[in-house]
């Protein structure tokens, strides 16, 4: 724990979520590395707990908002005990975690009675005072400026045709979305800074099937097939995402897609931070390609982008 603040570096609380520590380790590794290069230190939230995605949508289920709020208490604590100085923004990488944390935060901000109940219930925790602002890593990059991202690019990914995929939870519902839910551009703006040729996939905001993958993997496979086929039809060679579940459904389930559609050729899916790591010319250990369901290296070699 480095309490001495480096003047150039931005130190900002960061919520990883469970999957980023396991099946999506490559997401975290690449993200932390590219953040560091941009002088951002993503400081992991101490004693964080699972966010409990997907957010509870009934009017009375206050219990299910305890877990997200408890994480927000941690952010306030970090500021109070000096671990972080004056930074109440909480960065999330996983779109689903971002959605839950932000929605619970908005809910208690609009309803002080519910906040009081939650604070009273978690009497062993400090009270949540409503100071935290939950943001997505893409938002952080947008605030800093994608031109700053461009400055760090060592090897522009020219000629790589990428269709960014957004999914649902970083854009909807409107009050917490980070971009227009029908026509988002935030990911493609980032990718353009990396030198990529961005492809518009009309299905970029269509749901990947989310948790239905547990109940009916072939239903999800159909969605994957539609989303990726259309991306390919528009000219894409690679798809990026910002959510471990979207990653699993779009990439992991390609096995089921090929069972039902034998003519389907595998399409690599990467986290956008992995492309950033590649473009920044970081060491290979930060790419995390080993963990990807569909290895992108063949494609990258063909495009002469793998140094």
């Amino acid at each position, binding site marked *: 724990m480095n309490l001495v603040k480096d003047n150039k570096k931005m130190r900002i609380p960061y919520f990883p979520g469970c999957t980023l520590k396991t099946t999506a380790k490559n997401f975290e590794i690449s993200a932390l590395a590219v953040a560091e290069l941009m002088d951002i230190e993503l400081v992991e939230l101490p004693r964080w707990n699972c966010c409990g995605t997907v957010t509870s949508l009934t009017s009375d289920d206050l219990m299910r908002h305890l877990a997200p709020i408890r994480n927000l208490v941690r952010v306030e604590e970090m500021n109070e005990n000096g671990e972080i100085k004056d930074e109440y923004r909480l960065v999330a990488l996983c779109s689903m975690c971002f959605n839950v944390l932000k929605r619970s935060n908005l809910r208690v901000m609009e309803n002080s009675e519910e906040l009081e109940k939650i604070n009273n219930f978690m009497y062993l925790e400090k009270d949540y005072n409503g100071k935290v602002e939950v943001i997505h890593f893409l938002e952080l990059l947008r605030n800093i400026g994608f031109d700053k991202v461009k400055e760090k690019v060592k090897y522009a990914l020219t000629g790589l045709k990428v269709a960014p995929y957004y999914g649902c939870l970083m854009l909807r519902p409107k009050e917490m979305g980070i971009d227009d839910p*029908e*026509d988002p551009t935030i990911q493609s703006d980032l990718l353009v800074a990396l030198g990529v040729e961005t492809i518009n996939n*009309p*299905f970029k905001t269509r749901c990947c099937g989310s948790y239905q993958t547990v109940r009916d993997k072939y239903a999800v496979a159909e969605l994957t097939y539609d989303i990726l086929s259309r991306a390919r039809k528009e000219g894409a060679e690679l798809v990026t995402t910002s959510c471990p579940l979207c990653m699993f459904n779009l990439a992991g389930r390609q096995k089921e897609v090929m069972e039902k559609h034998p003519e389907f050729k595998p399409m690599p899916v990467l986290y956008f931070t992995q492309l950033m790591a590649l473009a920044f010319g970081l060491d290979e250990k930060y790419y995390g390609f080993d963990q990807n369901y569909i290895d992108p290296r063949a494609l990258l070699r063909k495009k002469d982008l793998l140094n």
Partner: protein
Amino acid sequence: MRIGVYVCHCGGNISEVVDVKKVAAFAEKQPDVVLVRDHEHMCSEVGQKLVIDDIKEHKLDKVVIAACSPQFQGSTFKATLEKAGLSPYVLEMSNIREQCAWPHFDFPEEATEKAKELTSIAIAKARLDEPLTKKTFPIGKRVLIIGGGIAGIQASLDLGDAGFDVYLVEKNPSIGGKMLQLSRTFPTEDCAACILSPKMADVPANPNIHLFTYSEIEDIKGYLGNFEVTVKKKPTYVDPAKCTCCDDCVDVCPVAVPNELDEGLSTRKAIYLASPIAVPHSYVLDDKACLGIFPLACGKCQEVCDPGAINFDVYPEEIKFTVDTIIVATGYDIFDATQKKVYGFGRYENVITALDMERMIVYASEGNPMRPMGKRIAFIQCVGSRDEQVGNEYCSRICCMYATKLSQLLKRSDPTRDIYVFYTDLRAYGKGFEEYYKRAQGDGVKFIRGRPAELIEDSQTNEITLRVEDTLTRNIIEAEFNLVVLSVGLRPNRGTEKIADFLRLAKSPDGFLQEAHPKFRPVDTLTDGVFVAGTVQGPKDIPDTVAQASAASSRAIRLMNRGEYDVDPVMAFVHTYVCDGCGLCIEQCPTNAISLTSRDENSDKSLYPKVAKINEALCKGCGSCIASCPKYALDLHCYTNEQMLAQIKAALADKKDGEVRILVFADDMACYRLADNVGTAKMSYSLDSRIIRVPSGSRISPKLMLQAFSLGADGILLGESEEKSSPYPNSIATIKSNISKVKDILEKEKINGNRVRFVQFVTVMLSGFVNNINSLSDFVRKLGPIPSEGLKRLDKDIDKRLFGESHDK
């Protein structure tokens, strides 16, 4: 002073409950009362004659009639007084029928006591009545009509023909509005240009109409009878007297810009004719599109112009004139479909708006629709209307019918086309509409009930895939189309905002201009002398627009025709010897009727050089200004501060130990009327109530309320109409502010603030009225009387507490 009091039996309606003889006997004992009579039917010819004879014989100078509601027979008795040579404003009525005998039919003794007190209140007011007369202001015959679409054109012709002086201002180079762009009109399929053209030609032909095209309103100041208008006329650089419309200039002009007439589907040159049927029929040089005039960059058009009609040495003109009335007819704009991102307008090649389609059909009839039409065409209804996601909840009214029209025209001109209309409701409400819809169905246009969720474009073929649920069969349809037409809704024209600001015109929740009353004054606004017509007031079709335009003309003629107009003297006035010219009242007035002016040295000796002045042409008589004056210099004719206090005293003077008094200040528009309705329905409420009539509750200043408590009131209820029905803008805000000041002071003296209440009523809330009165009465009875120490302290330093130091200045 000689007051005559008449107590009416009302054919038993009153006398069966209230002992009228006792009320008459009571009245006789009151100071200044010289004559008292009771009679079976005061409003009958006999009764009225009695009053007239008495006035003459006994030289009465004030008259009090204890009978029915003044809102019932008030105007009858006012006319009676006028016939006898008295001012109608020295009449007071005490409402012992609707507000006494009828609601309290079960308690004749108590009702009689209350009737006495109500009469005493009326007498107290009458004592201070002044013999006022209606005010008359001169008015001329000049009208400004803003907007030269079909509404403006119709209104101009009506008023011009009627002999009025019309100034018609239109921002485009030609009049005609949106109708110029339409192909045919539903349900008759008249050619829009053909029916519009002769009307347009009539405008310059009418000697009473002064037409200003390519002109905009820069400023409007003033009020009814005296609107000072400033118009800025843009230079056209072409002299219409010389221009022969030969088109030579167009041929040589090097600039091409999107043609507004065709919604950008075609181009025009910098010098152009706005429409084939443009009025004035003359070319216009668009100096924003032109390569440059100062310094001259090109000049080719002038070189080739044989008649020498083109002149670059012209400048914008500022024109000023004064008018008496104004009609706002600025029309609409279509909804900006790029806001509805799911439909891809602006991004997808084959998604267009209905107005685009209108233009395409006009050209298609000549063989070239400007862009491909295709065979499979879909219409999507409710784009930008009935949609909370884009912030427009309202229905735009004409889209169902224009889609029915466009789809039929397309189908009939090429039956091999496959045409679908995707709707949520098909609204064919007007004359001939349902039959027209049936015709479309018969022609083979397919109507599918479902709102398309999204459109997706194939990037190679540009075909549009549409996904929708057919809600009638619960199937999901995913189909491809060559062309998708968005049936866009209407928005108020962007030029309306500025005009609304100049004239202080309110907007309805949907963003269109608000009419004075939705049922009975649909073309008036709350600004006297300003009317609205056409789509600026709300989406509507051509017949309704034309009807409104004629209606607005008729309303304007009604004001202007006699050469003068009358205004009730119920208006604010200034006690100039008290006023110190602080100007705090000016902001309070919702109609900007108050200004500061220099004193007339001879008549007005005062330390203060400035004094407040009321513009009687603007004052509505709401009384909102009264509470804002720290010196109590502002007052209201017919409801003066003195009169209000006298009525309050009279209401409380005979209060006995153990009795409770609830003073109800009821506004003319809603609460007083409602109380009458309650009585008429024979519904009972607490006998503790004493209703005092006011034009608006905003007239009741915090000081009056506190004085009422000091004098013995146990509770006060202010009843007012709802904001949206109120003729007094800002009254609600004023009342709320006054009440909160009173509550604060009461609480400070440990008196329960809930003794004073404010309720907004509508005239049908009968049980609402009863419940509010009864609950306040129960509440104050439970609390018990106000402790006398609290009352004594209430009297102290009221003014300082309300106004702080500004009172003592």
